[in-house]
């Protein structure tokens, strides 16, 4: 009845097959063949995803419940631990599914152009397909364990792709950094999973959420540090790792060492949003614990502002976009934190569109500049690469949140939710608004530095040229999407209903903070304020960068910002170095060499000594051996004949 739903595993399987084929046989294949395999698998899984969505909606209309299917038992370890390879689709998954496969597909197309002249072409696409596979597993998983598999898998692919230019030391370092920092988050995530299992004796979403929504559990978690609180915080720790929130955001900017399409796909559109997805997925748990919600909201809000400030002064075009990604993710968490999960997911989707667009455009610019990434060596490109310019401009307007572009709706929804969330909502709103101003400022700064003013590069070496068709077409599609992506919420402006929220309502029905129609006028007002903020940013940027500017000396605050608050150095000093010291001097020297090796060697030495002592019994003299045999015989006979003999020997006694 539902061909794809019944074989849901086909969707993740396709990229995996593509990855395997490319990875194993691609090494001496022509680019065309590799493209065919990579794009074919991704595109097919995109189509399958669309079909799956259609079938799911049909299915939902019938049964009014998420579709879950158990395929095979994976782990059957303990009487109540049975983890199957279960996939599930509900409305949240639908959004993620379409975003991942769709945007992924576009970026694949783009990559065929961007990576055309790179070494390891087949390797790149094998990794990309593998990433798609894991990401799909992540979003389709019906239990935390399988989700964790995808979670780790995307981490692995991110590591591989960041370090794609593994000959560059910086790239390799960045890859390792991303991996390790993620490990810290995953550690928390696993603890959270263990805690959940210990509490609910299961890891299936359905079971856990059912149990969690029991009043008893809710009651149990009322103590602000009940089980659920801790579990949620731990899960959120994982989310901060994966989604680059304070304090674990440091890896994302470095991740820009990877190829630009990677930055677009993994570090903007899909993977980094996994954290948000998890939080949204577990909203049932989060809603039980106000503390956790607060933490999420505050961390998100803080990250949004903090990263935005850093973004203000970066000179590397991709670094700017990286920090903007961090801060946008912060927005998403803010949304989730204040209970507007649908708003968060909404922003996730729109952000996927426009941030992918921005990154790809940046990639196109870099491509045009022949690998130059420093904005201070660009300028005046608008006339030379028109398509890229317009797409970039679209993206900028979209992220800045001008009407009627995507972020206008999504960011608004978040800010509005924050505004009228109880206790302290106003503060969150204020910071969020400030971050919005900064966002539009640094984005327009980027545009001006890149495309306007007189060119600050050497004409003779750099031959600026428009990117090929297979790069520009995805740009246009994404530009269109980032224009229209937000229009689901259009009617809400005029008192209509927010289709997106409506669409997700089956998932988040439980705990959406009411609002909307009730305070319709207020929402309009806040939208206005947001517009003003964006415009403010635009004007400031225009004032500062429209006329050609020299790169000023970094001093004071500027320097502090430019050096990212020295966070990396602080981490290095406070965490990394002590860890290395402990590992080297205590764990290695004392524990390993001293205790363990010492024990082993000591045993060996003792054995040798004993053998050296006993060896003299092995004289090799047959007669001695014979006597030993006799001794043994005496003992054995003595034991056997004891009952008969002891009257003989000790008859006299008693």
């Amino acid at each position, binding site marked *: 009845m539902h061909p794809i739903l019944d074989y849901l595993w086909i969707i993740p399987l396709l990229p995996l097959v593509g990855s395997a084929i490319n990875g194993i046989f691609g090494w001496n294949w022509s680019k065309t063949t590799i493209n065919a395999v990579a794009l074919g698998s991704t595109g097919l899984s995109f189509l399958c995803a669309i079909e799956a969505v259609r079938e799911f909606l049909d299915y939902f209309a019938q049964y009014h419940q998420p579709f879950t299917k158990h395929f095979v038992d994976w782990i059957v370890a303990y009487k109540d631990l049975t983890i199957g390879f279960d996939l599930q689709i509900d409305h949240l998954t639908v959004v993620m599914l379409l975003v991942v496969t769709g945007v992924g597909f576009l970026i694949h197309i783009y990559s065929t152009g961007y990576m055309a002249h790179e070494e390891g072409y087949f390797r790149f696409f094998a990794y990309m397909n593998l990433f798609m596979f894991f990401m799909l597993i992540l979003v389709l998983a019906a239990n935390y364990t399988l989700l964790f598999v995808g979670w780790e898998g995307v981490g692995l692919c991110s590591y591989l792709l960041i370090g794609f230019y593994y000959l560059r030391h910086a790239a390799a370092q960045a890859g390792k950094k991303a991996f390790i920092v993620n490990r810290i988050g995953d550690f928390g995530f696993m603890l959270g999973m263990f805690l959940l299992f210990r509490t609910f004796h299961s890891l299936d979403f359905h079971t856990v959420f059912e149990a969690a929504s029991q009043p008893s559990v809710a009651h149990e978690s009322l103590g602000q540090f009940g089980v659920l609180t801790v579990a949620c915080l731990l899960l959120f720790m994982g989310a901060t790792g994966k989604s680059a929130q304070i304090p674990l955001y440091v890896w994302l900017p470095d991740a820009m060492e990877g190829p630009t399409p990677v930055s677009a796909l993994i570090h903007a559109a899909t993977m980094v949003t996994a954290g948000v997805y998890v939080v949204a997925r577990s909203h049932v748990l989060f809603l039980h614990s106000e503390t956790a919600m607060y933490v999420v909201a505050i961390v998100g809000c803080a990250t949004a502002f903090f990263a935005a400030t850093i973004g203000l002064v970066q000179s590397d075009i991709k670094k700017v976009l990286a920090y903007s990604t961090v801060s946008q993710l912060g927005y998403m968490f803010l949304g989730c934190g204040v209970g507007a999960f649908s708003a968060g997911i909404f922003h996730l989707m729109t952000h996927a569109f426009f941030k992918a667009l921005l990154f790809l455009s940046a990639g196109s610019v870099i491509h045009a500049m022949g690998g130059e990434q420093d904005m201070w060596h660009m300028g005046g490109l608008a006339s030379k690469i028109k398509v890229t310019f317009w797409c970039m401009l679209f993206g900028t307007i979209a992220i800045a949140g001008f009407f009627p572009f995507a972020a206008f709706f999504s960011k608004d929804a978040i800010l509005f939710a924050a505004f009228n969330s109880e206790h302290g909502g106003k503060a969150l709103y204020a910071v969020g608004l400030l971050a919005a101003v900064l966002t539009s400022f640094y984005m327009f700064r980027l545009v001006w530095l890149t495309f306007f003013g007189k060119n600050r590069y050497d004409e003779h070496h750099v031959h600026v040229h428009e990117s090929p068709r297979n790069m520009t077409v995805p740009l246009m599609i994404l530009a269109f999407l980032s224009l229209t992506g937000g229009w689901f919420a259009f009617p809400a402006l005029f008192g209509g209903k927010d289709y997106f929220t409506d669409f997700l309502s089956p998932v988040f029905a439980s705990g959406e903070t009411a609002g909307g129609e009730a305070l319709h006028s207020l929402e309009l007002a806040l939208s206005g304020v947001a517009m003003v903020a964006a415009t403010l940013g635009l004007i400031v940027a225009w004032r500062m960068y429209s006329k050609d500017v020299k790169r000023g000396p970094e001093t004071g605050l500027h320097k502090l910002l430019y050096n990212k608050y020295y966070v990396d150095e602080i981490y290095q000093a406070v965490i990394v170095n002590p860890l290395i010291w402990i590992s080297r001097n205590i764990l290695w020297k004392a524990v390993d060499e001293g205790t363990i090796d010492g024990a082993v060697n000591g045993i060996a030495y003792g054995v040798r000594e004993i053998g050296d002592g006993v060896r003299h019994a092995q004289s090799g003299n047959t*007669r*001695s051996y014979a006597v030993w045999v*006799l001794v043994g015989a005496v003992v054995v*006979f003595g034991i056997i004949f004891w009952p008969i*003999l002891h009257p*003989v020997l000790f008859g006299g006694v008693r």
Partner: protein
Amino acid sequence: MNASLAIFFVLAAVAVAAAVSLILQRHPIHSALSLIVVMVALAGLYLLMGAEFVAAVQIIVYGGAVMVLFVFVIMLLNAGEEEHTNFSKLAAYAGIPMAVAVAGLIAAAITRSTLPPAQDPTALTSTKSLSMLLFQDFVYPFELTSFLILVAILGAIVLAQREGN
């Protein structure tokens, strides 16, 4: 003190004496002769017990084959008087006491244990019934021993042949 008891004591005395001489003789061939005497005496004891076949086999195989082999080897290696080295202190001091202790334990156990009354030798099964037992109840072990012999022959050939041929 009937005749058979007398014969027993005579044979037993001969056996023990020969065994002692086996120990005391310096030259291996004299030890071998003593051992032959022991075996013949034992054969006589078997006859006394009515185990005629075993007695005959004892002499034919042990006396006629095994010991001949020993004598051969002694002649072949032209073994002289044995030298009384005492490299093994253990054997020098503890050896004989230990052996005596084992024998004593066994003897004590025998004297202490209750044995079935001896039966009239004439009542013992004849050679025919022995062969029945051997070729019906114990036929597989019997065949196995033939294999064992075969293997032993091969082993002996392999061991004793010179590297040349």
